[in-house]
């Protein structure tokens, strides 16, 4: 099975977030970056499918130079080769713009299966995989926890709301968006890191992929969220704060 995994580099979970001078995005200067969490699960699912059925796993990622570190991490975990869509203006694109780039890079590879994470931890649109399927003219399923190969194609376990699931059968080729938690994630081994250095990373510029349409939806302004409740912060030592909280819960909120 030939599998493409679209991955995204996002700010590390605990990174400090500051709004930049344009007021439209965050300061990226000394940001720490990481592989988007649900993309890590998409990669894991792809690697396990390859281990069971053979084939090839190719990662594709769009972004500036720095994205290279996340691509190398995926190669070290076991992906066979990579495509880096080199673009500095990823934050100027909307979900359709990003999906167009990915689709243009993926289509010539004709994979059996294309996986992405369910959503990114920064913008959180949760749309790239679904739009990608539409642009590639392929069937899709979203929020997938597990993929099983069948005679006719694949059977996938899809998460529904409130603890329910369903199985969906799809023909191949297809596109899936992967939910976190379906597998245990692997770490890159020392051997894997060594091998990654010899693996192919093909660079394509976004201009070569020929898609520079203006966004139809514009992120105009970012700002600190407004508080919905006025939180009483209880200070002091842990012991004092704990005692104050118990008092409040008993006599003010009256829930104890």
């Amino acid at each position, binding site marked *: 099975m030939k599998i493409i995994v679209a991955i995204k580099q996002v700010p590390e979970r605990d990174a400090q977030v500051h709004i930049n001078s344009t007021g439209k995005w965050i300061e990226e200067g000394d940001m720490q970056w990481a592989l988007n969490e649900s993309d890590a699960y998409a990669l894991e699912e792809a690697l396990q499918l390859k281990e069971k059925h053979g084939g090839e796993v190719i990662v594709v990622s769009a972004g500036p130079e720095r994205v290279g570190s996340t691509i190398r991490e995926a190669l070290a975990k076991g992906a066979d080769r990579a495509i880096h869509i080199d673009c500095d203006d990823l934050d100027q694109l909307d979900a359709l713009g990003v999906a167009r780039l990915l689709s243009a890079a993926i289509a010539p590879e004709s994979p059996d299966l294309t996986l992405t994470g369910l959503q990114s931890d920064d913008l*959180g649109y949760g749309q790239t995989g679904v739009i990608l399927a*539409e642009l590639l003219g392929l069937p899709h*399923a979203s929020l997938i926890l597990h993929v099983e190969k069948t005679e006719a194609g694949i059977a996938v376990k899809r998460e529904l709301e409130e603890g329910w699931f369903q199985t969906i059968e799809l023909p191949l080729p297809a596109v899936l968006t992967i939910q976190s938690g379906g597998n245990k994630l692997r770490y890159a081994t020392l051997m894997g890191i060594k091998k990654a250095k010899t693996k192919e990373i093909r660079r394509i510029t976004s201009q070569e992929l020929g898609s520079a349409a203006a966004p139809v939806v*514009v992120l105009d302004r970012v700002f600190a*969220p407004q508080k919905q*409740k006025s939180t009483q912060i209880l200070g002091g030592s842990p012991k004092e704060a*704990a005692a104050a909280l118990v008092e409040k819960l008993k006599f003010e909120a009256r*829930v104890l």
Partner: protein
Amino acid sequence: MSGIWVVLEERNGRIGRMSWEALAAGHTLGEHLNLPVQAVLPGAQTDSLAAEAATKKVARFVRLEHASLATYTSDAFTLALEQFIRAEQPDYVVFPHTYQVRDYAPALAARFGQVLIGDVTGIGAGPLLHPTDKDPSAGTPVFVRQLMQGRLSGEYRPSGGICFVSVQSGAFRTDQTESVSATVETLTPKIEAAQIRTKPGPPFRGSAQTVDLGSAQFIVSVGRGIKEAENLPIVQELATALGAELAASRPICDSGWLPIERQVGSSGHTVSPKLYLAVGISGAIQHLVGMKGSQCVVAINRDPDAPIFEIADYGIVGDLFEVVPALSEAVKAAKQ
């Protein structure tokens, strides 16, 4: 252009709360833009549902009716709504941000060269939010949604054409006032069986349920801040002292540290206890939608900017490994 169309969602023979919230969001837009608000319900055999829905405040009500819409598939729903939207040419299409909508609405919008503005928590008038702005788009509404796992908000402006929006659970208050009945119209889209490429199976439960978080009065919930599975007993001790059920955010269940039946959030349970005590949970949107109906929310977190503090009544900013044991002692002392 034909104003605002709200896409309602049928599930288990009912139109869910989130659909009515989407209708409320439609009315917010309609009042701001002076546009009619209408509703469309894709499905099969929705006659009785339609009669109920048509008593809500809608200018028109359309049943988009086809046997292929009885069970949800992305292909059938996208086709049906694509035909409907091409015929109606709405200004705005508003959806509830359900798992089902997330599965097809981005593809539907793409067919019109548009992008869904998803998971919207607020709608504002552009010029009011930009008092100095003199640009010609003044009058276009802006849509607010969360970014960076709830640590930032973003304001989005559509730039023309049909605007597709989905609204977050709980963000818009459902309109209680009901008015005169709209007539129910029925439209039948053209869908061929061969156009449906996926075969969905029936819903099933993950495993036997041994806890009932939905009816728990006290919940102590734990998140990433706990760091290791080995540290869970300190939170369990607090839960025991309070007589509370132990719950968790998604990453804890993803890691297998607690069973999925204890997960609170959009993919787990929705809870509304008297007391919800969040330990080491930053408060991503997916978690908040599952617990923001709690009567009293307490957050313990070392990051004072964690989004959980936006909805907490009481907060302690500090190291949970010091605060939680101290709190367990204080609760035990108070209960003696």
